[in-house]
């Protein structure tokens, strides 16, 4: 019997996948998608779920599970799909054996991302059927539906979510799990070996598949309520307004246009059912298209010769909300209270006691280096007062951008040196390939691998270096110094330090910068938020004590505040908030007057 639960979209996708008989799931963590796999992991042993080192590996593993005959899922944030795009585009050609769903969690408004790309464009580019849920109930229903569609049309299905769908809770009605027997393996070389000759045949198949999917989107999907029309009751004498929308934008449209307007709410947005739109448009006087980010639907509707109002009034970047949609459409803004006082911004910062702070403090004192950076909590090392990261693009990019910059600097006779900064999980993600390029093509950079024993930014996930899997099994820990040595970094050019010990860290950076050839410094200390395992406690003795400023000795030089520690309060004098202080003693190590003491 179904239960009514308040679930996030991520939880509902996990539930829906479990109900659909999912057997295999893989992902690399990425906000706002991370909780899908974390929740799927709880369905052990029904579902096998794992963290992959990156999104490409996650998708390829799910592809393997599908062709071995079971229902499989891969989940990732929008930029993760870039990493996984290579297998995706060709998997679209081969199609599936067991149903396969790829979840893309987009982040309009860049709450926790480096860009705002609209992954609906991938559906058309890779020619994969796309579903867009608008709340948790649809997350559950569409996930279940997606596996069936995947098997019916022989295609991977893209389930496109956004931050507000992933992280908003709404009511869902749960169901039971169905058991889907594994399809016995059959060798199908023409289907699964994409040599040009075979791929041409599959390419032709895509043309027919598209026609079938389009027919489904236009007719069956409408009958089944996957796409649906809600007719409004316009006030007498007023024009009939119609709204085409999908995903969370539909919710904002409903708030703004109310019950007077009519809605074509699309669940399938690739193939785009333009004839359904045409028919709907013919029954209204004015047609709006309300969608977040790109004019994805609008472009297709206009290309079909249907008049509509979309991005001419609604912004094509940033997250939408009811206020923005209302103001765009009606020009009306809500009555609000105001204050003459201005709040001071509250940007995120490295935690008190964060081991990364020691490294960035050490780097911040050096003028002759370019610090190429990567994606993780440690990207906050770019913020003042540390300001010790000068570039960040994508996962794993620090070492390779550093390599290219170092070659260019050497060629132009510059004395600047490169320090590439990358987290443990990010190094395993794609940084390791970049380091191969450094040794193979011999650039003289220093790669600092920030090994905080966990994937921290996305909320403490295990990775190939932590010794545990997603579902709690013990795993071998990748030995980073051994790995980089195998890649070709000379043993004498590898240092492992505790980054909260400034002397040790500075000495290693000095030596690494002076080294003959590329060098690696591993800063090894657990994330201050990490729930320490038994081994951790043995290896990393808990600090425990607190620091305080001896006001008698303090000369108010403020050097300690340059660490950017959030437990240090700098007003007319300097104080330490002992509730936040973890006793890492970094500030004490910077004090020239020994005025910071341990309790």
């Amino acid at each position, binding site marked *: 019997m179904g239960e009514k639960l*308040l679930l996030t979209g991520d939880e509902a996708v996990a539930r829906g996948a479990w109900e659909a008989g999912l057997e295999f799931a893989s992902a690399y963590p990425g*906000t*706002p998608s991370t909780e899908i796999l974390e929740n799927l992991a709880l369905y052990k042993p029904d579902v096998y779920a794992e963290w992959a080192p990156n999104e490409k590996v996650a998708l390829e593993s799910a592809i393997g599970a599908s062709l071995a005959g079971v229902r499989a899922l891969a989940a990732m944030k929008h930029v993760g799909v870039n990493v996984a795009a290579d297998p995706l585009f060709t998997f679209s050609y081969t199609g599936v054996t067991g149903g396969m769903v790829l979840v893309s969690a987009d982040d309009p408004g860049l*709450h*926790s991302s480096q860009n705002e790309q609209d992954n609906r464009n991938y559906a058309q580019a890779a020619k994969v059927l796309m579903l867009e849920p608008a*709340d948790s109930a649809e997350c559950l229903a569409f996930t279940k539906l997606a596996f069936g569609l995947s098997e019916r049309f022989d295609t991977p299905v893209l389930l496109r979510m956004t*931050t*507000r769908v992933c*992280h*908003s*809770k*709404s*009511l869902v009605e749960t169901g039971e799990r169905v058991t889907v027997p594994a399809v016995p393996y059959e060798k199908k070389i023409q289907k699964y070996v994409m040599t040009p000759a075979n791929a041409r045949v599959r390419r032709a198949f895509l043309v027919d598949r598209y026609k079938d999917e389009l027919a489904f989107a236009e007719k069956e999907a409408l009958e089944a309520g996957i796409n649906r029309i809600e007719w409004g009751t316009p006030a007498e004498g007023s024009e009939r307004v119609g709204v085409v929308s999908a995903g*969370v934008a*539909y*919710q*904002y449209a*409903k*708030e703004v246009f*109310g*019950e007077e307007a009519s809605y074509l709410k699309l669940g399938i947005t690739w193939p785009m059912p333009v004839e359904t739109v045409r028919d709907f448009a013919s029954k209204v006087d004015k047609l709006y298209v309300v969608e977040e980010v790109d004019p994805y639907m609008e472009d297709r509707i206009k290309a079909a010769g249907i008049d509509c109002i979309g991005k001419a009034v609604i912004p094509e970047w940033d997250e939408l*909300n*009811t*206020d923005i949609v*209302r103001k765009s459409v009606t020009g009306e*803004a*809500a*009555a*609000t*209270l*105001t*204050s*003459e*006082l*201005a*709040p*001071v*911004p*509250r*940007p*995120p*910062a*490295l*935690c008190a006691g964060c081991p990364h702070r020691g490294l960035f403090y050490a780097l911040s004192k050096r003028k002759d280096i370019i610090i190429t950076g990567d994606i993780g*909590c440690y990207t*906050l090392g770019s*913020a*003042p*007062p540390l300001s010790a990261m000068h570039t960040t693009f994508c996962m794993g990019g620090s070492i390779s951008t550093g390599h290219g910059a170092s070659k260019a600097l050497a060629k132009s006779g510059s004395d600047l040196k490169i320090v590439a900064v990358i987290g443990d999980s990010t190094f395993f993600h794609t940084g390791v390939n970049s380091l191969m390029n450094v040794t193979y093509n011999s650039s003289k950079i220093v790669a600092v691998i920030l090994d905080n024993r966990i994937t921290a*930014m*996305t*909320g403490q996930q295990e990775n190939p270096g932590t010794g545990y899997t997603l579902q709690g099994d013990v795993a071998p820990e990748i030995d980073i110094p051994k790995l980089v040595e195998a890649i070709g970094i000379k043993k004498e050019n590898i240092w492992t330090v505790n980054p909260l010990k400034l002397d040790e860290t500075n000495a290693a950076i000095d030596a690494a910068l002076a080294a003959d050839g590329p060098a690696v410094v591993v800063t090894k200390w657990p994330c201050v938020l990490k729930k320490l395992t038994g081994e951790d406690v043995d290896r990393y003795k808990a600090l425990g004590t607190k620091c305080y400023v001896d006001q008698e000795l303090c000369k108010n030089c*403020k050097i300690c*505040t340059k660490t*950017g520690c*959030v437990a*240090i*309060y*700098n*007003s007319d004098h300097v104080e330490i908030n002992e509730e936040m202080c973890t006793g890492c003693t970094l500030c004490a190590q910077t004090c020239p007057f020994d005025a910071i003491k341990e309790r």
Partner: protein
Amino acid sequence: MSNTKAILLVGVGGQGTILASKILSEGLVAAGYDVKMSEIHGMSQRGGNVSTQIRYGDKVYSPIVGKGEADVIVSFEVMEALRWVEFLKPGGGYIINDNEIPSVPILMGAAKYPEGILADLSAKARTRIIDANAIAEKLGNKQTQNIVLLGAAIRALSEAGDTALAGIDWDGIIAKNVKEKFVDVNKKALQEGMAAN
């Protein structure tokens, strides 16, 4: 839509806004409402400002609270109450924890914590100021400040005419959401919050 009510819980990462809003929304579901709740994770957890948005009524569409729409704003920190002032419905009410947490620019000495926030907001809107930290400390568990504030929020919603909330088994929902050894202290915290003036 028209009968939809909105609550914002705002604060600083790590203050327990998420647990408080989870308990509140489960209670609202038990009272038979359609409920949507939205929160932002990720980068904002690292000491940045956090918000949880709850909308409930017969049928709720948007999961996000619009400007001028919040019936109640529960602010776990003084400056955060100011940050969200435009979201309070004219005639709506504030519950503000009397707790100032300086943000990074203030810690660095690059900005000053604004003075007179409580007086300013009290003059503009119905405002109940609660020292939830002191109450929680008195109960012997500082972490329960979030549940003290939740108690105050439930009382404010009840006083605003939401009679369904009084009949909800809040203790039962707390028991479902916190570790067994912390159930009693959280139940007490809720009572204290409901009673606080």
